[in-house]
């Protein structure tokens, strides 16, 4: 192996070993983030606090409210007497949903007249609304067809099964658990965060302490310096990735459907792209603090646009276009594809091409900027 490159890599590891804070951050951050995201980000909305305004106060109205609770999506937290009390309950946050049962609900049903139940939802939280409406509408539809069937049977008609039925089959994450979706994504987010920041700071630190001048006055070649700086962090990136996948598996039961070696191979491109980006930042930053700020500034669009937090499909065209420029967008598809869907290399050629192109672009950019001159 190249002596000069090795010297840089060994030095980098030795410095890292003495820097307890960074070391702790690199191991602790992935696990902490994983637990935070894994437990806190949960879009499976359950137990929505609900109040009931029952104008009918009949056995049938109580029965409907009870079946709502039975779905597990609603918890009845109380009953109100008047319309304006609903507003109060939603404003104070006591409830997110209110069920309004009209007067004569039971008698209308008995006489076969159409009746309307009202579900008032708090729209300030769109995720809740979607879940709440879906379940409630489904429940009402089921009730209706049940009633129609009963009545037909009572009238002596032929009761067949419901004529058209949609059978939803969910592949790859059948329980639709958020953790399964989020954990592989965290691998990408953590790698983006630490890899960019560590390289950006590693060079800015040399600049700040005056050792960079000593390096550029030495015969070390540009690529040796860059590669020697980056290689130890590639190793760290893999350690972090392994840590997240392991904890994800043990704590959140995240599966690994596809090939682990394929994931690790493709992760190299992603890690390298982030390191090249960090290097680019380091050529712009004069101090470690600036380098850190730039890295954080870069992290935000990654979380928002990559499809980690919000579905890519819902983004407007310009945002999508921008997100294609982020390595994380492509790595997320790769890591989710492999861990959850068992995607193979052929399935991922598109993402691979993007990642490769971005890597080449970033490496070219940063080595052009990173000069062995002082000015």
């Amino acid at each position, binding site marked *: 192996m190249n002596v000069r490159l090795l010297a840089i890599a060994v*030095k980098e590891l030795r410095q890292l070993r003495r820097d307890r804070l960074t070391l702790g951050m690199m191991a602790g951050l992935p696990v902490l983030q994983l637990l935070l995201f894994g437990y806190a980000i949960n879009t499976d909305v359950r137990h929505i606090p609900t109040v009931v305004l029952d104008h009918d106060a009949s056995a049938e109205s109580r029965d409907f409210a009870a079946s709502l609770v039975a779905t597990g999506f609603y918890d009845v937290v109380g009953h109100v007497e008047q319309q304006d009390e609903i507003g109060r309950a939603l404003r104070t946050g006591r409830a997110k949903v209110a069920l309004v049962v009209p007067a004569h609900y039971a008698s209308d049903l008995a006489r076969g007249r159409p009746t309307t139940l009202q579900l008032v939802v708090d729209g300030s939280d769109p995720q809740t609304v979607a879940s709440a409406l879906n379940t409630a509408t489904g429940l009402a539809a089921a009730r209706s067809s049940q009633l129609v069937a009963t009545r037909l049977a009572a009238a002596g008609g032929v009761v067949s099964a419901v004529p058209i039925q949609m059978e939803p089959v969910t592949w790859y994450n059948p329980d639709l658990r958020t953790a399964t979706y989020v954990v592989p994504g965290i691998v990408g987010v953590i790698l983006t965060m630490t890899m960019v920041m560590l390289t950006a700071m590693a060079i800015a630190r040399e600049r700040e302490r005056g050792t960079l*001048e000593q*390096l550029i006055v030495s015969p070390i070649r540009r690529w040796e310096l860059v590669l020697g700086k980056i290689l130890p962090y590639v190793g760290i990136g893999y350690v972090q990735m392994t840590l997240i996948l392991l904890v994800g598996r043990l704590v959140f039961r995240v599966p690994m459907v596809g090939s682990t070696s394929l994931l690790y191979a493709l992760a190299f491109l992603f890690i390298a792209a982030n390191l090249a980006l960090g290097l680019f930042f380091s050529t712009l930053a004069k101090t470690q603090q600036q380098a850190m700020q730039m890295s954080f500034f870069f992290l935000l669009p990654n979380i928002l646009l990559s499809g980690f937090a919000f579905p890519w499909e819902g983004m407007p065209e310009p945002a999508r276009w921008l997100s294609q420029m982020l390595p994380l967008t492509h790595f997320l598809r790769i890591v989710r594809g492999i861990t959850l869907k068992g995607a193979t290399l052929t399935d991922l050629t598109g993402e691979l091409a993007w990642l490769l192109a971005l890597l080449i672009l970033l490496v070219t950019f940063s080595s052009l900027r990173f000069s062995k001159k002082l000015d």
Partner: protein
Amino acid sequence: MTEAVVRTEHLSRSFGDLVAVRDVSLEVRRGEIFGFLGPNGAGKSTTIRMLCGILDPTSGRGFVVGHDIAKEPEKVKARIGYMTQRFSLYEDLSVTENLEFYAGIYGLGPRERAVRIAAVLARTGLEGRARQLAGTLSGGWKQRVALACATIHEPPLLFLDEPTAGVDPVSRREFWDQIHRISAEGTTVLVTTHYMDEAERCHRLAFIFRGTLLDVGTPEEIVARRALRVVEVVAADAVRAADLLRTLPEVDEVAHYGPLLRVATRGGVDPERFVPDALAAHGIAVTSVRATRPTVEDAFVSMVKDDARGGAV
């Protein structure tokens, strides 16, 4: 025949409108200790950085260890050692680890490295501190480690950019002993300083001021060229005497040294007679007058003042 290890031809460097180095032509010969003298901001560091190949000249040419600094900077870098006043050590690495690192980036293989490090530790008396973190060393020790790092690959040419800034006098003296030992072994040393006592320890000097080379030569030659004559005077009212002497055209420079006034005259004026006469004419009693040797500092101050007055050198 002495061969030029460093040769520059009309070397200049500007930063925007500011001309940091202007038209510098000089030669440094093999094996000598060449001092680069000038006040802060005179262009010393800029010149050294150009010679090291890490800063491109705006115009002019430079050859270091046989290579053009603008065309083959990497070939230059492989054959020079470089040490700055910041010492450039990794404070979170031990003395040995620092040496290993610098040996590594200069391409020394493991076996060669071990031999060199052992030798360098022994020579500099660093053996007892080999495992100590560089950040916990005192200024003088840091300087030794930095010098050891800069010479680990036995370069034929060593650049020292204000290597003794902020180091105590004893360490400075020991450091200069080291420099002379290195030079005696055949290494050419180019050192910048603004300490005048250090200038006299060099074989040859270059004076640089506001980016311009004022004079080059041995300390003796430079002092002789100024044709200064110096006396040390004890006068009744030293402050008034100094003010008075400074108004006279024959007087080049007056400086206070405790109770003494050090007075330099030029143009062949004999200060032993001139100074007491001039002071007596203004009623200032002179208790003693003693002729003394003009120093590099006298020559330097004189040159800088001439330049500031816009006069000829």
